[in-house]
């Protein structure tokens, strides 16, 4: 069984879609716990791919394709998971947005795809999102974390405005805020009172896991 889980991880790491689907089916047939397939197989592989991405060994296209394969495989696991009566891992909600004035959404989309693979329930508000809408979403969806992306020096102040507006709405500190984007730094995150900064989607996923821990 452990061997099959290793095969599954390898298939994800090499973006072998057919292989991954096949091994997932074999695991389910052989009675492996669906939660183990998800966590020790699929999610573990995605975390490893994230580590490889951070050191440059893997790259964006591989991560995106792998996240896609992940989604196909977890569809297979889902019915078994419901049937199994296994205690589901608690689902943590993550709201994502690219701030107003900014139309760059590739980085934010990849954060969303990566976060899903480690079990986050991701709500993506899209790009060019005004602060009001971010506050409304935080109030209604009650996420654990709000992730805000800004790719331009001129739109970074919107991250600051959003943190302040969430404070004013009384939603902090329950709702954590993480920030990212090319011009964003840890100092900026500290300055505006955000709970964390991540330089890339793999780090953002790790940061999100750390914050809910």
């Amino acid at each position, binding site marked *: 069984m452990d061997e099959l889980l290793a095969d599954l991880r390898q298939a994800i790491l090499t973006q072998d879609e057919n292989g991954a689907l096949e091994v997932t089916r074999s695991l389910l047939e052989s009675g492996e716990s669906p939660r183990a397939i998800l966590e020790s197989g699929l999610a573990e592989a995605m975390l490893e791919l994230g580590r490889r991405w951070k*050191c*440059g*060994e*893997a*790259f*964006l*296209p*591989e991560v*995106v394709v792998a996240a896609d394969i992940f989604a196909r495989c977890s569809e297979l696991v889902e019915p078994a998971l419901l049937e199994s009566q296994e205690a589901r891992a608690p689902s943590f909600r993550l709201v994502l947005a690219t701030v*107003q*004035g*900014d*139309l*760059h*959404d*590739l980085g934010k*989309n990849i954060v969303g795809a990566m976060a899903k693979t480690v079990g986050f329930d991701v709500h993506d508000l899209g*790009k*060019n999102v005004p602060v009001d809408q971010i506050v409304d979403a935080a109030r209604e969806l009650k996420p654990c974390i709000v992730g805000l992306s800004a790719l*331009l*020096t*001129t*739109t*970074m102040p919107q991250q600051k405005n959003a943190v302040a507006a969430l404070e004013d709405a009384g939603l902090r500190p329950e709702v954590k805020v993480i920030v990212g984007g*090319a*011009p964003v730094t840890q100092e900026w995150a500290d300055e505006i009172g955000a709970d964390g900064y991540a330089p890339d989607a793999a780090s953002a996923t790790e940061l999100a896991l750390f914050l809910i821990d």
Partner: protein
Amino acid sequence: MGSPELRVRFQPSGQEARVAPGTTLLAAAHWAGTTVDSTCGGYGTCGLCRLRVLEGDVPASPEDSQHISRDELADGWRLACRAELEGDTVCQVPAPAEHPRSVVEGIQRAIAVEPRVRIEELESGGEGGDAKAIVCGSWQIDVIANDRVPQPFGVALDLGTSTVAGALVDLVDGTIVAAASIVNGQVAAGADVISRAAYARSRPGGALELQGMAVDTMNQLVARLGVAASVFPGNVYECVVAGNSIMLHLLLGVDPYPLSVAPFETVFDEPLDVAAADLRVDTVAKDRRGPQLAIHPQARLQSFPMIGAYAGGDTVAGLHATDIVRGDRPRLLIDLGTNTEVALGYDGRVVVASAPAGPAFEGGGVRCGMAAVEGAVARVKLGPAIELEVIGGGAPRGLCGSGLVDAVAELRWAGLLDRSGRLGSAEELTGNPLADRLEEIEGARAFRLAEGIYIGQRDIRELQSAIAAVAAAVRIVLGHEKVEPHELADVYLAGSFGAALDPRSARSLGLVPPVSENAVRGVGNAAIEGAKAALLSFREREVAFQIPFHTEYLELSGHPDFNDTFMAAMTFPDLEGLG
């Protein structure tokens, strides 16, 4: 910008132009390539640009009556420079009077020297006939005694984000007497255009502070050019400036904030003709005087028109220099930089997009990266031995953009790098003669190019992202016009990085589309070339200033195809297919 919808035909040549309503017949003639006499530069004063309208309605202008009789008016004669087009038109153009002209070579064509700055006989009266007037278009700049009339000069500038380039030009024979570039003093306020826009907003008077820095830089440059050529700056009567949109806004004291956030709109985009001693947009700054460009106190400064927030006067000037708009075969202009402009032109129109390439082409964000200055590796060959070409010839200190592109392309050819951009490990590559140069630095793989100079896996990823942004822009622009790469007649690479690039390496990495190597040409600073053409010839200037009306701008941030195309472009081309 609006698309040109009117059609004008000039007889007897049969040359045609498609132009926007409101364009003058003279500008349309320039666009079509038809020579119409004129010496005043289009101000309705010389009366030489007479032509006859055969078909279509062209209203007479007040100036017509000064030069054209009532009978002739009824017969369709008009001054081309005053006649604004409202509908399709056919005209008869008289044969131009032959007059000798100086001619200079541009990138694509010869340019007849007919500057807006001219020396004219003073009209009778006043001081009498022993003085001459120096005029710039309809502006009288100076009156000088006959025996002391100086040689007139002009200066063409490209106000860039990091450097300002300039050419001091003799306005009689069209030669460049001095050329230089210096660092833009605004660099202290941020490296890229967006951080300049943020700086302008970060403090009261920020935009004016940046304006001052730009003008100081330009003054230093003009002084340097003057010293180099022994030309007194007071004999410079006109300055023509190309530059990106944010730089042109700042030059004229306009806060560029709207250009820096979605929906990325310019505050003004028209070419402005302002007093060099009072640089401002008078509709924005009504009372406050602007700073002074230290040339003749009555001189004029002409800025280039802009296409959009990220396709500015420099793009228009580059398009004009390469003349890709008016050709009949598709040609591509790529101006490589932090923001890379990509333009596809043919058959009277051009499609432009701007790609966010980031700083890797300038050596930024790269471990051993550096600017293209002394000590930078500019060329790399990985054969049995490693051959490095170092700027200045000394010991290598780092890699500039062209060296990085060469090195990564050579790693591909040497089999150390796969199409995904992953550097192999020493174990995987046993037997490869270069495998012993693979090392592990800070947890990531790296290739040792020379003592202390490495190309790391992350550096390759930086370059890959920059290339993918450019390649995505090229694919989207070509796709928009349904042009296949093999149909491209030429690919021009502008900018100093473009000129330094090895076309084979650029092709191997997908930085230029798969065209034959001879089709790829470095054209240097095309923006300066275009600005120079506009300075030297009022006809060239009119053609250049028409370009925005023939241009479609594709906004890539938020473009539905950008993310997927960008991602697909991250995979390097298959080397087999390139030969």
